[in-house]
């Protein structure tokens, strides 16, 4: 492959800084030490251990007297083989608001019911609201606005028990869970517990289990036994299209076109 006239070896991809393949990166970190020359030296030493050469602290600032924030510039000595990278992605065909509604009307013939929440101790509602709320996100309507979706948004800090109870009560086709805080991997414990609860209540085969959040991806979803995972930049129509297509496929009324 050639980029700007330079031959690029995709088996040895390095960061782009000023020129192709120069390896320069900029990153930030915070150390729990007071700012000063020792702190700067410590940040540089740490970055060298991380595989950066020619490390320079280009900005540093004291935080509350006991911490120091750094912006560091350095040359990465590592490379990655881009050709060997395989990522599982949610498998679906993109559709618009109207296409999704028409698809549900013709293939499924009834409204799709979803329950959604940000669970556990997590209080970040903006992500799940973006997907569900009437007003939507980034110029798109949320699922509440779709005539062929019935969406229940339970809000934030919802216990898994309450989310599953609601799903059973309304006969949900899909459970949508948002996890934003990932400190100490709380999201893993919480998402695993939800999957176990859904299984223990005997509804695993009746619902699509979908997770989302800024640090969620489809790989993680699959690993934790979910049907799909959506990360940053997700639009309501992505989620709506996936749910509609996956339900239709499971009902045996629709099959995705085979890709070559």
């Amino acid at each position, binding site marked *: 492959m050639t980029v700007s006239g330079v031959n690029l070896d995709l088996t040895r991809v390095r960061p782009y800084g000023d020129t192709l393949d120069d390896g320069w990166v900029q990153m930030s970190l915070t150390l729990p030490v007071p700012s000063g020359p020792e702190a700067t030296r410590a940040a540089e030493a740490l970055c060298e251990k991380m595989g950066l050469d020619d490390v320079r602290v280009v900005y540093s600032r004291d935080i509350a007297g006991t911490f120091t924030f750094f912006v560091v510039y350095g040359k990465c000595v590592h490379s990655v083989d881009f050709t060997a990278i*395989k990522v*599982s992605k*949610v*498998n679906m065909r993109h559709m618009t608001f109207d296409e999704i509604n028409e698809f549900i009307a013709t293939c499924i013939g009834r409204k799709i019911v979803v329950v959604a929440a940000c669970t556990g101790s997590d209080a970040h509602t903006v992500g799940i609201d973006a997907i569900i709320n009437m007003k939507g996100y980034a110029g798109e309507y949320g699922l509440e606005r779709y005539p062929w979706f019935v969406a229940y948004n339970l809000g934030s800090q919802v*216990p898994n*028990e*309450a989310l*599953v*109870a*609601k799903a*059973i*009560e309304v006969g949900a086709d899909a459970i949508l869970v948002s996890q934003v805080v990932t400190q100490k*991997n709380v999201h*893993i414990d919480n998402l*695993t*517990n939800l*999957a*176990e*609860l859904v*299984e*223990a*209540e*005997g*509804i*695993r*085969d009746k619902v699509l289990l979908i997770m989302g959040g800024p640090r969620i*991806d*489809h*790989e*993680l*979803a*699959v*690993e*934790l*036994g*979910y*049907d*799909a995972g959506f990360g940053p930049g997700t639009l309501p129509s992505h989620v709506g299209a996936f749910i509609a297509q*996956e339900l239709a*496929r*499971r009902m045996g009324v629709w099959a995705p076109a085979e890709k070559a």
Partner: protein
Amino acid sequence: MRGPGLDITDIVLSAGSSVAVVGMAKNCGKTVTLGAILEGVATRGIPVGVASAGRDGEDVDAVTMLPKPPIWLPEGALFATAERLAAKARAPIEPVAATRHTSALGRLLVYRAIAPGKVEVGGGNSAAAAHDAVALMRRLGARFVAIDGAAGRKFSCAPSLVEATVLATGAALAATMEGVVRRTTRAVRTLTVPEWMCPAGAEALSAPLSHRDVVFIRGDASSRRIVVPSVLARADEVARALTEDVETVLLGGALTGGFLRAILKRGRASGLTVVVRDATRILVEPGDLDRFWSAGGQVAAVHPVRLVAVTTNPTAPDGRLLDPAALLDGVAHAVAPVPAFDVVAGIARNLPAAGEAGPAMPNRSGAGGRIGVHGAPAAPAALAAPAAAFDTATDTAIVAAVAAGAGRKGASDHGPGRLAVPRGDEEPPREGGVA
């Protein structure tokens, strides 16, 4: 002949022909434990099948981003995986049959390893999928089946799925050894709640138990069954129905903290036994269970999970290393009489004397139909000579039938003489051949 002493494979095989390996957390050495068992089983010439309760065997852990040991399979091994994961196998494989399940990674198929090698096993993300994959691999000739309880998915050790469970624990679980031992002990106690042996059980369970059923059993063995949308939503209502004469409440679905707290609030814990289908239905924070137990309540299971071994991994992903022998000792002491292994260091504790007894089942109840004290050892069962336990007759006719798309009902997974609880979630698998 292998070396002296029993290894983890002996212990697993003495309990039956299927095992689930579940991890307390990520990086507790589950995949290494699974590998040790698979290797041992293959060495004994027993055809194996492997399924997963999520996804495992990928190069890099999706949670910690650390490299992971892949799942190594011996030649001829069967494994159930999603089509798109099969494409990543680093061993020559061939599709053999299809289950009725499909995930976001494609159809869940059964493959055969034509030569030994490393594979990704995944795509069976529900109990039903794992159940069907196991039944199918058995019909295709697997004499031993292992389930990889990916990412701590407990459902994979349900007695309706496997006969034995191995729990992997390790330094990744907590910052200190005491923390690892404490959390492991708690998990073991929950997983091995005693078997419910109430004489009233037969009557109370005469009708199939659905996930929505709650059965109240009184002291005089009479029972009353109600149907609720979910105990999760009606915890207070169900707790209110626990009149003084009710000694046992049997839940068809999950047991959660909300229900235990509702019972505690009404002061009804003392003398009450909450019975679940099996321990995988218990999804309660440790604090709530402790309070219920201290208040005199008991938890029991219709189908006990048979925990046959615990394995320890002294290394944590952040580089911490605990003393392998000290960790094993600490865990072994806490889970006794369950055997404990460090399969990497090659050390073991709590082993039954060779030729004498099979692994003790700490959750067998005592005599007289009452729930036994936790930890009471079982009557010794002869340690079956592993190879002899498997009949080597070929299954060619069945394989042909499966390939032709004929559906068959899986064999019952509970031996005779057990309380048969028809499980509402069971359906005959409908497999088809691979087109």
